[in-house]
């Protein structure tokens, strides 16, 4: 067993850290204050090729293993930034890559690799279908060589900062299905054109963090048949296929957040003097930080194993899901230890702890709630009865 980082892995982490160093706390703080998108940061990441990391070389990407994609996002969050603004450009293309036709791949992937085209919105969740994806109501009705789509999506991140959106829509009514995991299809939607023609309306949805979520209304949106990915009715399977990568990457952002909290907390605990000694000399302050660090190390090992399995082409559903679960929990424990360590200053915006605190909390709920991860582990890993 070899846990050492290769020269490449060190170079990748080092280079991402260096890029992030030019976007310090104050940059993120100011954006958060104004709910602005980190345009300059995303441009720097794009120009340096980081978001094309997972795209095969023949389409202009760098064809890195998922383990390296994980390192990239981890370093961004560990630097104090928030990869959520751009992570989807890295992995949303996976559905096109695995299930798209050759002509779709030729058409989209090279331009996604350069960042000329942004594919970083994925429209799945609806007001009446969150955890239970197979209940979505947005319909895509075939009409000649196109589909006509109607429905509403909610919590769709970055839609205003993306040119394309992958859309999950119903092509067979729920009641007509024997197998409820069928009947859904995935489409590539040209958001700019849709907005221009009035067939797509995107409304910002303010959240606790600077996250650029939106509600999307689709009204008689016409999608050419050639923009359907893979077979009709197989969309849910295609989405499930992308989950493992997403879990591994989200776990990595959690680990990055956790590292940031532990680093800030241990530094502050060493510097802040109360009752004549550093607060970190008190076990009540020190132990939660140490515990969070240990938990993060454990989560990192599980994340690494999941990525290792994935990159070898082996089954990794259990590891990827569990990595997301324990990493998001460890990050949250680290966030609490950090805010406690900072006392009142944890709540002062200038210290950035409260911002990261808000940001990392999301990862326990989205893109999938940890309850559903536990349900997966209980049922599919341990063979207990289905709980939902």
């Amino acid at each position, binding site marked *: 067993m070899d846990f050492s980082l290769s020269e490449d892995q060190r*170079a990748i982490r080092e280079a991402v850290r260096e890029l992030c160093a030019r976007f310090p706390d104050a940059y993120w703080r100011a954006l958060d204050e104004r709910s602005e998108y980190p345009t300059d940061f995303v441009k720097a990441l794009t120009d340096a090729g980081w978001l094309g990391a997972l795209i095969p070389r023949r389409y202009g990407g760098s064809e890195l293993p998922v383990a390296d994609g994980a390192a990239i996002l981890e370093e961004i969050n560990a630097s104090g930034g928030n990869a959520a603004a751009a992570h989807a450009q890295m992995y949303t293309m996976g559905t096109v890559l695995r299930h798209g036709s050759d002509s779709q791949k030729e058409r989209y992937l090279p331009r996604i690799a350069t960042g000329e085209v942004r594919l970083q919105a994925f429209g799945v969740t609806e007001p009446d279908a969150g955890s239970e994806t197979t209940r979505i109501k947005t319909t895509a009705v075939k009409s000649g060589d196109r589909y006509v789509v109607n429905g509403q999506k909610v919590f769709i991140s970055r839609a205003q900062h993306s040119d394309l959106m992958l859309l999950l829509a119903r092509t067979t009514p729920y009641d007509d299905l024997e197998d409820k995991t069928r009947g859904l299809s995935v489409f590539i939607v040209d958001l700019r054109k849709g907005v221009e023609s009035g067939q797509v309306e995107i409304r910002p949805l303010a959240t606790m963090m600077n996250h650029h979520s939106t509600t999307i209304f689709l009204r008689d949106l016409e999608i050419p048949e050639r923009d359907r990915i893979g077979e009709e009715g197989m969309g849910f399977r295609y989405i499930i296929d992308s989950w493992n990568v997403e879990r591994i990457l989200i776990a990595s952002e959690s680990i990055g957040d956790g590292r940031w909290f532990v680093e800030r907390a241990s530094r502050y605990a060493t510097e802040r003097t109360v009752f004549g000694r550093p607060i970190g000399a008190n076990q009540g302050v020190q132990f939660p930080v140490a515990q969070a660090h240990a938990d993060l190390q454990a989560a990192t090992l599980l994340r690494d194993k999941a990525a290792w399995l994935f990159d070898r082409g082996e089954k990794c559903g259990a590891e990827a899901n569990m990595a997301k679960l324990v990493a998001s929990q460890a990050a949250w424990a680290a966030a609490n230890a950090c805010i406690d360590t900072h006392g009142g200053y944890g709540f002062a915006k200038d210290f950035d702890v409260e911002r990261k605190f808000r940001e990392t909390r999301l990862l326990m709920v989205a893109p999938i709630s940890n309850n559903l991860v536990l349900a997966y582990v209980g049922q599919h890993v341990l063979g207990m009865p289905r709980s939902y």
Partner: protein
Amino acid sequence: MKILVCAKQTPDSTVRVKVAPDGRSVDAAQITWAVSPYDEYAVEMALERKDADASTTVAVVSLGAARAKDSLRQALAMGCDEAILVSGPGAEALEGLGVAKALAAVAQEAKPDVVLCGRQASDDDQGLVGAALAEALGWPHVATVTKFAPADGGPAGSVNGIDVWKEVEGGHEVWRAPGPVVLTVQKSEKEPRYPSLPGIMKAKKKEIPEKDVASLGIGASLPKPEIVKMEPPAARGGGKIMKDGDAKRTAQELARLLREEAKVL
């Protein structure tokens, strides 16, 4: 144009270093290594020339421990064409003049039009190697450089002297040096670029040849002054907060403290 950049690997300036228990070195466990900041400007300056004229080639050389290869790899990822490591027993123990002689041997073989060095290294701040290198090569030297370009007039592809921009009090001067020349760099026009992912992928395929410092024939080295003691800066004392709400009284008290206690007025 052919450019050779000399880049030293030093402790990363963003990492806080601690004095090791021996009291005369920094705690190696705390260190991450990086290209010294002025040398990074030199790399950027060379690459800016390459951006302006794609026929430019940029080689980078580092003398030091084997780990300096990581920093060379970094320079390749930024866009340098080739890298050379000068290492081996004794490399790290060389004093400034020895380093300059070793680099001169590399420069003589590489035959660049311009050699760039940072103005000083961030670890010892000696500022010796660039000037000594020019001396060892018998080439002209221009210091505190912020930009350079081939002088106009020569046939395409030839180097007909080098125009060199130099920072001086309140402005800049442009000097013209005959090539080849050694320039010590103050700052590049832009901040050093970061390595791109495609750059990293390309860099990892490149061989970094290693030269043994002993093979360069630099002769007897001068005795090296050694560090006998290192002290961290004194801990910052607590600040004083003046809580008297009255602006006039606060200002008077502040002026008194600055004059009598801080003695800065």
